[in-house]
């Protein structure tokens, strides 16, 4: 379909957002990226509530979710999405600094589709974002969600 499949990036850190966008830009994926600055915004976007009440476009092809965020953290967003039968098929990739086992276990147990640790090396990061973006937004067939 012609409608550009989007990537929802959820991260509270301005620097991380900037780096991620720069990474996506290097791969020509930056116009697909929608940014939410915390868990609440992410949910607002997905559920067409709050400031995204008038969201026109389709649901994103994938949600790149940071874990450590204020108010509603990444794991809570994940839990809410995966416990909602309407949203649970939506692909979610945890994109985070930490490789702590507790986060890893919790994420997968709650139903995340993948868990990616952001590397310190920027070039590696660029490479990862390219692979993730291309896979989820282009290669993968998104689930059919009435959104």
């Amino acid at each position, binding site marked *: 379909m012609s409608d550009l499949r989007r990537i929802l990036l959820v991260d509270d850190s301005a620097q991380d957002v900037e780096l991620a966008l*720069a990474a996506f830009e290097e791969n020509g994926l930056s116009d697909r990226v929608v940014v939410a600055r915390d868990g609440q915004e992410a949910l607002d976007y997905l559920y067409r509530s709050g400031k995204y009440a008038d969201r026109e476009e389709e649901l994103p092809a994938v949600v790149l979710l940071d874990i450590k965020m204020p108010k509603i953290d990444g794991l809570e967003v994940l839990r809410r999405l995966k416990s909602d039968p309407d949203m649970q098929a939506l692909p979610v990739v945890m994109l985070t*600094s930490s490789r702590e086992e507790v986060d890893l276990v919790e994420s997968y147990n709650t139903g995340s589709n993948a868990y990616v640790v952001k590397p*310190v090396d920027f070039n590696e990061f660029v490479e990862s974002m390219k692979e993730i973006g291309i896979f989820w937004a282009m290669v993968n067939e998104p689930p059919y969600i009435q959104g």
Partner: protein
Amino acid sequence: MRRSLAAALACSYVVLLAILAVNAAVSLRNASDLVARDTAMRHGLDVELALADLRRSLQEAENGWRGYLLTGDRAFAQPGDVLLERAQTDARSIRKWSAGDPVQTARAASLVESTDDLVRLLDSSLSPHHGVAPRVPWRRALVPERRCEDRLRDLSAQMTADQERSVAALAQAADTSAATTRQRALAAAWCGAVAVTAGYLLLRALLVDRGRAERKIRRLNEELEQRVIERTARLAAANRELEAFSYAVSHDLRAPLRHIAGFAELLKKRAASTLDGATARYVDNIIRAAQHAGRLVDDVLEFGRLGRSELRDAEVDLNDVVSGVRAQLAAETEHRDIEWSIARLPAVRGDATMLRRAWQNLLSNAVKYTRGREHTEIEISCRPVGGEMIFAVADNGAGFDMAYADKLFGVFERVHRSDEFEGTGIGLAHVKRIMERHGGRVWAEGALDRGATFYFTLPCSRCKEIEDVRSAAHSACG
């Protein structure tokens, strides 16, 4: 305190036993004395009776003879014979019964002798010559007989008197003996009672003491348990703190490092044209520093995690592990001339992740420190020695000064400069920790610029035998 109580208790028991033993001995002796005395008394009475009987016999015999002498009638004499026989028997009995007393024995012997003499004399004097009674005037007759009779009578009287005296003495002795026995029995009973009471008191004291000691022990035990619980709780809390710390570090320390590295890269890209050599180098340094810090953080976190984690034992084929690690190092080894000599390694029981990490560190070190060589040789071997399997990773690289051999395995310790060889100095510390967790040891040998060999051991109990080293393993690992 307890020892003296126990000793006193033992003493009182010994005393009690002694009293009982002495009492028993004395009682037994008294009993046998009693029996002896009783027998003696009975004999004494028998002797008295016999003597009386003897006298009577003699008297009746004498009467008989008198009659015979007066009348010449044999019939008077006859009973006399029987009586004399009785007298002889009596005399002999008396002798028998007087066996105990030497004086009486002597007298009894005389008695027997005299009785026999009398019988003989009478026999010869009075026996009829062919049925004719001798006509002897009795006053003048039987003088020797009469003398014998007198002797007999005296002896008899003496013996009787003696006998009465001795019987009386025996009776007296019996009385005193009874009195003494009663006294002794009472005394023994008293002592026994005292000893038993003493024993009881001591025993009670001992038990009280023991009870006190037991309560003390129980209280100490409870205190100890309490302390253990507290300490465990404190340890658990410390552990949790460490976990929380590690978690925070994981998130919060990595992020800024990523930002530094990321923006520096972007800066380099954006301003590539305007950056001169030095400036570009500065930016590179920033990037490298940030990346190094990132690796340090990773290493420290893993080191901490390793310390806290449980060993998850599984069967690990070290050949697979080594192949896997080599594949991981492919990027670095691709364009290099590396000769690998890898012996067939055993399967071991251990934590797969940890063992893989250890091999990763060892092999990446080997690859790294041989970078300066045109032709790199890396040899992996193992051999069983004693109760252990010794593994070795040998390279022909930069080596190290043996003087710093013990620093090698320290945390963040390095024996090379970072501009010579990069690294965080934690790789070997990891290996050491991992092997020690598995019950092994590590050490290294090397020489500057002549390569290094890193050894680690695993106990044979963790190793399974393999074909190539089977015979050797049999003899050493048994």
